């Protein structure tokens, strides 16, 4: 046992293993919720492993609520005191989390003792305990009487905020938020602000980062007056900090800070005191900083209004749209809707375009995927003409992307575009291009045609589907690649509801029946499934169909094993025999998983 040699061996007996395997026990004991479990929890609160200790403390906190005030003082407070004066740092760190739950219901004499214990832990010898105390300082302050907060908590806060270790100092910043909420403006100015000012200029970037990260909370806690006098200058410094981490954290808060400024005079404050610094960040040397800024900067336009946006923000947006880092451009484009509300997207169109084109061809498929998702919005903002001229070709190019996820997104995108621009537009611009791909030598592209038809048929309506799409689908039933053939069967099943009975009976059914006799097992399977769906529809339409003609496809062959056929991520230029190869494409796997599940559920 680890604790045997140390002086801490006494209470550690039950939990001396110092092992996270004890974690479940701590959880279990928590569920028992009984005074009897206090002793084992006390032991668990002294082990080294942090997760165990934290859980034990959490459980003890819950137990404390169940005690009557008398029992609390009789049983619980002594436990906290024992922990607080433990030899090994672990018990003292645990104690830090327990003061605030027993304080409110304790008698005055005990309260004084508790405060005394907390005070001594705040100046503990080991930084681990000081960190624990600092992280609980805010919580403890909230349950104290205001007089004690001023006379005791504030000095502790000041001390911790100037600790020799930056890991302690940064936790004091967190406590600052809670403490500031408790004090009046005058007290704040006198008691807290000197320390906070010092923290914002701490020599350790971690502390400054913390200030930047907690800026909105601090702003709310100290109120508008101090914000204007103190926080704004501090924020300016953080925005031009020498560490990129700090600048990025501050940049993230720009919008929230501006939003929370008092409405009166907000515009002036932003224009004079914040904007000049933002302008510099746009050309920062660090991409994370620029990217953080780009994710919030568009939000300023609603705060500043149309004229200021056009005059001051637009140049910044444009500059960021041309940034060399794709993330920055993407963040701008992702938030276009904010600007759109204020000035309309047209203002940006000239610069948007190159940015979009470049992102559309980015080497990372996630970037391409993200930009595809903004296409419908862009299309509706920019209008048909502009779209046809500049963006249409991009949308078509995505259909033959070598990543399946992009091809899939491009297909959905087409559907959304048709919903926006109407069927006539679809018939003239989209459908012909999609149908041409049916003759592509690459089977993946041929399949994309089918996927597009699946997506578009409903929006395009019966006429276009029957006259233009159906012939192509039917023709593809003779494709030499099995994957295409069974996708034909799936497509026919999908577009069936849109077709009229003549087409179904006269054209679709014969083809499906032929596919139902296919030599490939999977083609057969999907064809039979489609036949049953089509037959059902025909029956609904009151068309006479003999039951014997309709084999109950999926469940019929009991031992049918569905071999997953996957449209792979390879470009499909290889010979067809490679097609049965599994790929790592998650989306495809998902699809397979669904299919397999589906077939099993029918069994």
């Amino acid at each position, binding site marked *: *046992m*680890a*604790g*045997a*040699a*140390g*002086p801490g061996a006494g209470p550690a007996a039950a939990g001396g293993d*110092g*092992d996270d395997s004890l974690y479940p026990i701590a959880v279990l004991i928590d569920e028992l919720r009984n005074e009897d479990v206090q002793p084992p929890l006390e032991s668990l609160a002294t082990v*080294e*492993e*942090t997760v165990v200790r934290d859980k034990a403390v959490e459980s003890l906190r819950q137990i404390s609520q169940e005690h009557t005030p008398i029992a609390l003082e009789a049983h619980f407070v002594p436990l906290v005191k024992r922990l607080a004066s433990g030899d*090994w740092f672990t018990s003292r760190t645990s104690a830090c989390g327990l003061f605030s739950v027993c304080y409110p219901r304790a008698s005055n004499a005990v309260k004084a003792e508790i405060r005394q214990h907390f005070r001594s832990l705040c100046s503990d*010898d*080991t*930084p*681990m305990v000081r*960190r624990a105390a600092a992280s609980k300082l805010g919580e403890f302050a909230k349950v104290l009487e205001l007089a004690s907060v001023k006379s005791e908590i504030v000095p502790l806060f000041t001390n911790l905020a100037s600790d*020799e270790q*930056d*890991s302690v100092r940064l936790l004091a910043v967190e406590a600052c938020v809670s403490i500031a909420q408790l004090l009046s403006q005058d007290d704040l100015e006198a008691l807290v602000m000197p320390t906070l000012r010092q923290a914002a200029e701490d*020599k*350790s*970037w*971690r502390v400054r980062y913390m200030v930047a990260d907690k800026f909105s909370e601090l702003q709310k806690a100290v109120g508008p007056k101090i914000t204007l006098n103190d926080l704004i200058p501090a924020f300016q410094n953080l925005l031009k900090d*020498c*560490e*990129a*981490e700090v600048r990025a954290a501050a940049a993230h808060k720009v919008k929230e800070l501006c939003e929370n400024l008092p409405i009166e005079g907000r515009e002036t404050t932003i224009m004079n005191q914040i904007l000049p610094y933002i*302008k*510099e960040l*746009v*050309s920062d*040397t*660090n*991409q994370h900083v620029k990217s953080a800024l780009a994710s919030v900067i568009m939000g300023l336009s609603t705060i500043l209004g149309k004229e200021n946006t*056009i*005059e*001051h923000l*637009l*140049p*910044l947006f*444009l*500059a960021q749209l*041309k940034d*060399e880092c*794709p993330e920055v451009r993407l963040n701008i484009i992702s938030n276009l809707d904010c600007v759109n509300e204020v000035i309309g997207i047209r*203002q*940006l*169109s*000239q*610069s948007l*375009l*190159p940015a979009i*084109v*470049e992102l559309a*061809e*980015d*080497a990372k498929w996630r970037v391409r995927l993200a930009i595809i998702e903004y296409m419908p919005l862009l299309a509706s903002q920019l209008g048909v003409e502009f779209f046809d001229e*500049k963006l249409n070709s991009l949308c078509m190019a995505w259909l033959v992307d070598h990543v399946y996820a992009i091809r899939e997104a491009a297909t959905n995108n087409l559907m959304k575009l048709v919903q926006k621009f109407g069927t006539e537009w679809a018939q003239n611009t989209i459908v012909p291009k999609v149908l041409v791909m049916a003759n592509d030598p690459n089977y993946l592209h041929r399949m994309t045609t089918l996927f597009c038809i699946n997506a578009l048929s409903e929006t395009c309506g019966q006429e276009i589907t029957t006259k233009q799409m159906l012939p192509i689908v039917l023709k593809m039933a003779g494709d030499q690649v099995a994957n295409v053939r069974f996708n034909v069967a799936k497509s026919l099943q999908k577009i069936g509801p849109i077709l009229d009975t003549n087409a179904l009976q006269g054209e679709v059914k014969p083809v499906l029946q032929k596919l139902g006799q296919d030599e490939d097992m999977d083609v057969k399977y999907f064809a039979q499934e489609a036949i049953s769906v089509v037959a059902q529809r025909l029956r609904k339409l009151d068309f006479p169909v003999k039951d014997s003609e309709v084999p109950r496809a999926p469940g019929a062959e009991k031992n049918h094993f569905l071999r997953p056929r996957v449209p792979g991520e390879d470009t499909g230029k290889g010979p067809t025999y490679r097609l049965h190869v599994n790929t790592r494409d998650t989306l495809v796997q998902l699809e397979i998983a669904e299919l397999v599940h589906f077939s099993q559920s029918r069994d």
Partner: protein
Amino acid sequence: METKLPPASTPTSPSSPGLSPVPPPDKVDGFSRRSLRRARPRRSHSSSQFRYQSNQQELTPLPLLKDVPASELHELLSRKLAQCGVMFDFLDCVADLKGKEVKRAALNELVECVGSTRGVLIEPVYPDIIRMISVNIFRTLPPSENPEFDPEEDEPNLEPSWPHLQLVYEFFLRFLESPDFQPSVAKRYVDQKFVLMLLELFDSEDPREREYLKTILHRVYGKFLGLRAYIRKQCNHIFLRFIYELEHFNGVAELLEILGSIINGFALPLKTEHKQFLVRVLIPLHSVKSLSVFHAQLAYCVVQFLEKDATLTEHVIRGLLKYWPKTCTQKEVMFLGEMEEILDVIEPSQFVKIQEPLFKQVARCVSSPHFQVAERALYFWNNEYILSLIEDNCHTVLPAVFGTLYQVSKEHWNQTIVSLIYNVLKTFMEMNGKLFDELTASYKLEKQQEQQKAQERQELWQGLEELRLRRLQGAQGARETPLQRLTPQVATSGGQS
């Protein structure tokens, strides 16, 4: 920095935003596409040093130290030290080249002077020296470029100001090592706070810096007796934080190396404080993910302890067994290596106490499907001392490992392992033929019993299956009760198993 943005006076013409570096986007391809494809540019290294630079004064070269008469030497030395306290921006490699060169030359001269000239280190220069060193080396380390920095895989982030920093460290080292150095004077300036900041620097990603720090801290520990306990305590804090809070500290190996030599010098009997350090810090350090980076130093420290006080052996071995890696084979090999180092120095009286749990673990390692683990465990039998220990205690050790070895020798996929096990079994046979035969016999008997049990179990299941079938038939056909006839049969076969 001056922004490159235009004065916001062209609001309505986004087509001509006037940003000089980018060509007007009148064409879709009006920009270089290559810029996008290239790998993410390395972030410029940041160093928090430069921040505290206030007014940058021009540095002018001072006369050489060797050129002035002895009476003016110390005055010049002070001025040089002050000059070396001026900091430069190394992120901008062309900024203030002249100043950098002046400082470099001055530092070089100081290094030279403190190392070779006697009588330079008089009391008044100590504060100047420590101030110069503090200004240069103490800084908040910049954030790591790579938040998941892996010391084994990734390139470390090198300190940009190294050209000066190295000279400062060199100077510091020579200062400490100078025959004129007086700890009694220096201890006024090299205090606890100083040491704490020095320890924080061990987190530097730059291995060159850590190397200097290691030597320097070692000297400080040697020369400042009053700081020893404090240094040990702060090291403890660093380690504990590393184990339980952060799992990130770059200088663990270096600190352990220093501690290794410190442990070496511990007086006997060991103080409780030191034993506690072993049990509560060094042993849990084995559980850290990045163990491989500092394992050699850690194992050295552990073995040092055991050489000092053999009674700690049981604690250590049981501790290691507790933290024995369950899934990481790489760590498992390291543990085995450390265990062999420990066994090399173990006293037979201690060996007896832990032999059984230890060799059960060794047997588990031998049966590991990872051949490196199995191989490393089997190498124990190449060690003559361990072999002699096994021989002396073969009545305990052999039964603990025999079953596993015998089974693995039949089943392991790797031929090398199989032949190694054969050798081990052969040594067992030679060691104690009678015991070996007994173990073989009992092993075979055990196997037979197991097989029999398995067979009985299978028969039982078969019986149950038949029962089910008959019941089904019975339900369909006549209302017989085949159940009753079968039940006793099932009960007996169940009783046997």
